[in-house]
């Protein structure tokens, strides 16, 4: 469903993405792991169209979207959540979700219909709020929510579009263990007609919830394989898992 072919990207002299290729078919739960600064978020920005690659191609389905702006890719069925919460802070949870529905369904130019009359938007909003565990907080201002709840809404916005490809950038970062458990359950329960690409720091979570893993290091793919293959790999043990403990020490 989503394919990246030999992507390169540098910021000045700093090469952040080096010859990265990926294929995420429908139904796949594909995780990207790698130490801080490995270029995971940059890769997402390239896939979503926030950044233009220096080289390489990106395809959604059969369509080459390498030169498409982010909104055009979103309309092709690509949806993403952000590592840093990227919400509509002046509104309520409901306002945020309804806004995502307006954009996803493309009725933003309806200037005469009352928004409050839109039953289908209200129903969809309630359903997604239930799914992300915010049903009770629908009418709370987003800026008053706990960090964890904001993270949940971050994913909720991405889900409103009913996407074909979902990119989740560390959806559980900063969440309590309970919230993390619920988020993983949510990801497990996502419909199978959806391709999911997930950035995640917690190795245990990755090994138990993904069916394919790409390990990035300094912008390069160190290896790609099933959780068993990655877990058993010597290079990964050395460079990434070793790197991780080194990080934890400092």
């Amino acid at each position, binding site marked *: 469903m989503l394919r990246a072919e030999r992507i390169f990207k540098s910021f000045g002299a700093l090469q952040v993405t080096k010859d990265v290729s990926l294929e995420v078919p429908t139904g796949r739960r594909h995780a990207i792991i790698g130490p801080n600064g490995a270029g995971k978020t940059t890769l997402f920005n390239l896939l979503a169209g926030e950044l233009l690659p220096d080289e390489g191609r990106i395809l959604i389905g059969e369509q080459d979207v390498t030169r498409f702006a982010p909104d055009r890719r979103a309309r092709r069925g690509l949806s993403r959540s952000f590592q840093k919460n990227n919400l509509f802070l002046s509104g309520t949870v409901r306002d945020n979700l309804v806004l995502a529905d*307006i954009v996803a369904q493309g009725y933003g130019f309806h200037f005469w219909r009352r928004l409050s009359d839109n039953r289908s938007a209200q129903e969809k909003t309630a359903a997604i709020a239930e799914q992300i565990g915010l049903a009770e907080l629908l009418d709370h201002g987003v800026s008053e929510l706990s960090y964890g709840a904001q993270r949940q809404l971050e994913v909720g916005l991405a889900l409103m579009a009913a996407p074909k490809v979902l990119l989740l950038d560390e959806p559980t970062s900063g969440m309590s263990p309970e919230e993390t458990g619920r988020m993983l359950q949510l990801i497990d329960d996502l419909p199978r007609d959806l391709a999911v690409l997930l950035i995640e720091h917690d190795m245990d979570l990755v090994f138990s919830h993904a069916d394919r893993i790409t390990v990035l290091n300094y912008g390069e793919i160190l290896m790609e394989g099933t959780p068993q293959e990655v877990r058993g790999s010597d290079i990964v043990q050395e460079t990434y898992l070793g790197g991780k403990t080194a990080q934890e020490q400092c």
Partner: protein
Amino acid sequence: MRSLISFRPALAALTLITLLISWTNAEYFGMEILAEIAVLALLAMSLDLLAGYTGLVSLGHAALFGCGAYSFAVFTAIWGWPASLSMAAATLLTGLVSLVVGAVVTRVQGIFFIMITLAIGEMGYELVFKTRALGGDDGLAGIPRLDLSAIGVDLNDPGIFALTLILLVAVVYLLLLRLLGSPYGAVLTGLHDNAGRMRALGLPVQLYQTSIFAFSGALAGFAGTLSAQHTMFIAPQLLHWTTSGEVLVIAILGGLGTLVGPIIGAALITLLRHELSDLTDYWGLWLGLFLILVVMGGKNGVVGWLEAGWRFVARRGAQSKSTARRSNDAAG
């Protein structure tokens, strides 16, 4: 929360009633002031759509206002078209101009947006100032008012003209309120809040920004046709960036993104200017002080202050009610 949502329309109703009461008491000069307030209120509401709701602060809005006024003047006073047709044509023309300008200026954001709207507005000013056919710096005179004698309304009567404009402000306010309560209105506030996320969700951001620039510009142009009919004489100053600045001040003073704020701001600024300039040569100084006082304290203009006051009163009311209930419970 709910009480606050209905607070603004109530405030708008109160403002309208105040304007109508002043109208019943006004002499000739008062009528002139009321008409001026109404025109400025329409213009400031149109800017509020752009600056307050969508977050696109334009310093070229006066040029669109002037575009409406000048095209109306040309259509009527020079080409001899009927005023009704001229109003429609001038509004439409300004909308088209705004569409083209909007498609260009929405390519940039923030301070660059302010600068490019300022620059384009000044180009419009220069164009009018230097064009002899448009009267140059002498301006254009002999502009007629809409002829409504068919329905027994004489707009050449200052009182009738002022009343018509006040009612027009009310109608436009209601239409815009409806617009802002629609999905389109939600998109505008979403763009203000976080345009980047709107794009990530799939919104063609520039298209929407251009559309509201065009609509807001058309409304400014419409206000321009009324301004031309009010004074029956227009000068290039109408397009000058200082006029844009004044309209922005009106919207900020009243409360950006509140829709009723611009009406209140227009009334306050107009009144202060006339009253203070009678009392002192330093009226600009006093006006400045007043502005600083209103904007300090982080409140959103006059409407922000009133809302804060209302919340305070409501909370006190709720508190005294609950203490009353508690003492009742204790007694019972």
